[in-house]
């Protein structure tokens, strides 16, 4: 598939003698949600880390926007990293407790050299607004936010990098049902508006069935269906 946003071929991840991911292949188009489903320890999260090149795979290929990533040295990977952003399960753990929300969202802009003192603050406010947070939340620290608000801030931070792919690792698993529905609705809106591809890791089948376009089922490191 040449129009795939992400194509994973025969991905293998080994930790010492343990093979956590065993020849996993799938592809994902822009605007599409692909779910990785399976029991604890089946290799879902290891697959996610390998796709993000946060853990280099033992073998196999990860082709993102037409470029094969596994062979690239870190120096060449760095300009591509903003385009694939993770959102993790624990919204508090993924934001520094000592930084205000506004600084957490501004950080990618600054690191990537896209910050200006005139337009930067307005961009942060716009991102917070985009995820349904009143910009006044920018003054707060993570512990002053609810779990759902914190997860929204994490999504705003990911969006600051202008990604094409979000790797969502159990993004709603620690949230209460009514808050979870709001965050899933937000993700659906963002995908419709921005054409983002989602690699969606979730162990709640009802959420997966509702939210994903396609499901890849994993067990013991292998794809068993999908």
């Amino acid at each position, binding site marked *: 598939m040449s129009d795939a946003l992400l194509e994973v071929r025969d991905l293998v991840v080994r930790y010492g003698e343990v093979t956590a991911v065993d020849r996993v292949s799938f592809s994902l188009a822009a605007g599409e949600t692909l779910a990785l489903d399976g029991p604890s320890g089946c290799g879902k999260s290891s697959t996610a880390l390998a796709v993000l090149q946060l853990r280099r795979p033992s073998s196999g290929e990860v082709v993102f926007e037409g470029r094969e990533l596994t062979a690239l040295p870190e120096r060449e990977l760095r300009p591509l990293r903003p385009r694939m952003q993770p959102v993790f399960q624990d919204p508090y753990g993924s934001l520094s407790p000592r930084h205000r929300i506004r600084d957490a969202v501004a950080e990618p802009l600054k690191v990537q050299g896209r910050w200006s003192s005139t337009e930067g603050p307005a961009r942060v406010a716009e991102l917070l607004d985009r995820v349904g947070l009143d910009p006044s939340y920018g003054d707060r620290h993570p512990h002053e936010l609810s779990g759902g*608000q914190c997860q*929204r801030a994490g999504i705003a931070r990911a969006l600051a990098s202008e990604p094409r792919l979000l790797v969502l690792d159990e993004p709603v698993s620690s949230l*209460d*049902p009514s*808050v979870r529905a*709001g965050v899933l*609705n937000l993700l659906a809106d963002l995908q419709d508006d921005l054409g983002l591809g989602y690699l969606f890791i979730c162990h709640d089948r009802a*959420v997966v069935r*509702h939210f994903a376009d396609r499901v890849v089922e994993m067990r013991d490191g292998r794809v068993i269906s999908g």
Partner: protein
Amino acid sequence: MEPEKRSEALLSVRELRIAFDGVETVRGLSFDVRPREVLAIVGESGAGKSLTARALLGMLPRDATTSGTIRPDLAAHRGRRISLVPQDALSALSPVHPVGDQLAAAVRSVSGVSRKEARARAVAALDRVGIPDAARKARAYPHEYSGGMRQRAVIAMATINEPDVVVADEPTTALDEERRDQVLRVLAEQREAVGAALVLVTHDMDAVREHADRVLVMYAGHLTELGPADEVLGRPRAPYTAGLLASLPQHAPPGRRLPALRGTPPAPGALPPGCAFAPRCPLAADVCRAAEPEPQQVEGRLVACHRWAELPHPATELFQEQTAEEGEERQPA
């Protein structure tokens, strides 16, 4: 308010209040646990459901102040008449003793049986919860058990002395679906086998549907709705219950957008005037902002809502129009 009939109760909770630093998180809660029933307690984080469960066990944090009554005082016989299945099985087991020894110690703590007899009961209990080769596994340490096996060992521990009440506090939250199903099944089997009542604190509505006889829905430290589980889930009478159920993806109408409750539950100590749910409620009227509703009898259940009679069924469309843009979680708290 109209409490339940006391005659049916194994355990009666009346006007329970739990506060920290003068801020009440459980605010005058009354309910019964009946013999051999499965009573689910549901609600969102901060609703007070875990604190209520801990109060039944006499296991509240030291800085909690309480009032109200829980009768009889089963907590004085914790481990014998009432026991706990916690969320985190690892924290419930000592890492430095074999699992079988821990079960045997639990037996000997409440009865004068011999060491040998206690050991035999421990092995039998592990066997009952489906631990393979129980005699050998009884000599193993918790770290040598898989996560699912540890959870079953904790269930064996909680039921080995045949208590009247087992309290399970989010027993499946950390588990994947396969292990969740297994743990719920073993819990239901063991409860049945020893004839205990089960108080199941959970936010897993499927678990409530599959296992509970009755369900207590809590919001901001208050009873919102209490009644037979199939009736409450089948036709909620309180708007909060209806919104909670509508937001579940398993009940979602076609289309990607889920019905959602706007906003978040109020922080303890920052309650709005009147009904604590009013700011999020699509049916809220002046009366709701003026006075907090007391639980009243409605068709064989208790409902704390001024406007219950106005709630349509199904209520899904009441919660449909509210999008993130229209204010979910946007008001600064």
